[in-house]
């Protein structure tokens, strides 16, 4: 138990990721308002990207933009560029899904006149 606590204290990024991820999922399942559910979804998505980007950091390394014109580059001096390239793609896909789900929310509001899950279920009965 003490060992686990120590590993967690050394990884504040992971604690923040776990808090945001679980809280976002809780809001997605428990909150009745549809826009609040999407805010929870956004927080879950960004927390996962945050978790991936934290892997790319290296102690004492700089941003992955090469400083020299010569061909020899020491990889230890630059952060790992691959998680950055993958997460840039993921952020754009995240916005695409968010846009479609917001369009669905406004279509639901147009039909039922409410953003509240319970009222919509009431009308569906």
């Amino acid at each position, binding site marked *: 138990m003490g060992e686990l606590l120590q590993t967690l204290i050394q990884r504040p990024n992971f604690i923040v990721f776990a808090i945001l991820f679980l809280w976002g999922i809780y809001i997605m399942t428990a909150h*009745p308002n549809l826009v609040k559910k999407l805010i929870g979804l956004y927080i879950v998505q960004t927390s996962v990207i945050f978790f991936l980007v934290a892997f790319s950091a*290296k102690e004492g390394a700089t941003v992955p933009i090469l400083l020299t014109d010569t061909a*020899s580059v020491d990889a230890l001096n630059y952060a790992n560029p691959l998680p950055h390239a993958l997460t840039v793609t993921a952020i754009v896909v995240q916005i695409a899904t968010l846009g479609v789900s917001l369009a669905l929310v406004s*279509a639901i509001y147009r039909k039922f006149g409410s953003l509240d899950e319970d009222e919509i279920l009431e009308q569906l009965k």
Partner: protein
Amino acid sequence: MTFELPLLILLVVTAAGAIMVKDLISAVFILGSYSFALALVWALLGAVDVAFVEAVVGAGLATVFFLLTLFGTNEKDTHIRRPPVPWTAIVGLPILGLLLLYGAGDLPAFGDANSPASIHISPFYLENSLEQTATPNVVTAVLMDYRSFDTFIETIVIFTAGIACALILRKGDS
């Protein structure tokens, strides 16, 4: 590293604000500030490209999308009484949290240059991209040269999302 802890606390506080505030417009603006805090953390971790994209797309475009939806719908969270917490959340979330904590011990240490993610193929890109693509920014080289088809086909994702939005929001259908 000295700035990192306050920024992480700011991240959790702004996320809590976005979740807890009743007025939805305020919640959306707080979510925008959460995105900016996230972009700051990423810039601090060395992920400048991700920070740019998050500041522009996450804080800018997502806030605009949320606001456009809210202007067409109800701006208040009308639910007054607290709903009962579903039992799936009561049972599932602690299990998920315990699994996450259990897996934390196997993760590489933060900032470890010899973590598995950083030793397999990523040094190849750092060492050879300038010679092969003549681009100093390695993230650009990976996105636009080595994985250019992936980036190109991603425009289809955006196109599909735009078509879906247009079809959903089409007026006058029965």
